[in-house]
């Protein structure tokens, strides 16, 4: 009789422990799913779009043809991608594009480990088909600091027949 009562008590303890364990597992699974939930890492940023759009209109120092005009940055990027011509002052069109964009980024955003923004990543790629998911053909990219966590970003299209040049920018807080 005593043995049966003890066994019953043990069974109840095992049942109780089992319930606790099941609840704990359910909680851990819930947390795991919640934390793994693919929330958008990128926040679309209006200010970044405005920055890229406006910077593409910047008049550069590069003149390609004799008696030609100083090219805007978007025209220079097209030139850099399609022909790779050098400017009349001897500078490469791609180098001038990179220097102009870098100058504007550095003047517009304070980026350092001590500041609000820790890094940036600007990519200028050519896509034959903008809906394709591949990385496209890289024209140039500018990277500074660490951009592994969440970031704000946006992109700007420059039509370049038969595809598009896409300037995409990320800034990481």
């Amino acid at each position, binding site marked *: 009789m005593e043995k049966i009562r003890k066994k019953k008590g043990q069974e109840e303890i095992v049942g109780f422990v089992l319930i606790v364990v099941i609840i704990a597992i359910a909680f851990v699974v819930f947390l795991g799913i919640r934390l793994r939930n693919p929330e958008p890492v990128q926040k679309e940023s209006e*200010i970044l779009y405005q920055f890229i759009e406006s910077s593409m*209109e910047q*008049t550069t120092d590069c003149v390609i043809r004799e008696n030609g005009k100083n090219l805007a940055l978007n025209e220079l990027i097209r030139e850099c991608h399609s022909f790779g011509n050098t400017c009349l002052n001897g500078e490469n069109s791609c180098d001038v594009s990179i220097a102009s964009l870098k100058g*504007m980024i550095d003047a517009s955003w304070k980026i350092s480990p001590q500041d609000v923004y820790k890094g940036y990543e600007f990519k200028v790629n050519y896509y034959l088909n903008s809906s394709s998911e591949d990385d496209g053909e890289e024209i140039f990219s500018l990277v500074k600091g660490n951009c592994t966590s969440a970031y704000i970003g946006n992109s700007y299209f420059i039509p370049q027949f038969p595809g598009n040049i896409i300037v995409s920018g990320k800034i990481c807080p």
Partner: protein
Amino acid sequence: MSLLRVRYSKGQFKIQQMVFIIIAIIILFGIVSVFFISVKFSSLRSDVEDLRKEAVLTQVRKMTGAPEFNWIMSDDCSSCVDLDKIFLLKDRNSYKGFWNDVSLLKVSRVYPLYDIGECTTQNYPRCNSVTLVNKGDFEAYESFVSLCRFDDTLKQTKCELGKVIMGFEGVE
């Protein structure tokens, strides 16, 4: 009689046990729910804040489309503003009180920067900013634009990166 009492207290013990387990489960789920709701609401608040900021930024940008600002030499440049036109508006008596709703309205150059800050008739265009309204006490919002004008040395249009800064009183 005593046997009956024993049976009754054992049943009571079982009910108590069950009640404890139910209470423990409810507390556990309560804690989880509170945690979940707080995480959800904190992100919601920041999302609302972001959306409001984006809306104000869009409004600031819309300002560049006003006839007093816009650059008409190019059809496909929505981000371009006419710096010459803006400079001419400065200190113009007919425009006094025109932007009554804003506490600050300023256009500044971002890149490249010159040594001189505020533009005057003596230093224009080698200066960095044109202030049209400055009443003080405001919360400012900035929007990137292209500052365009006809450059006499280049004999062509020259656009540079700039910002339109608008300040509103009592924006929270």
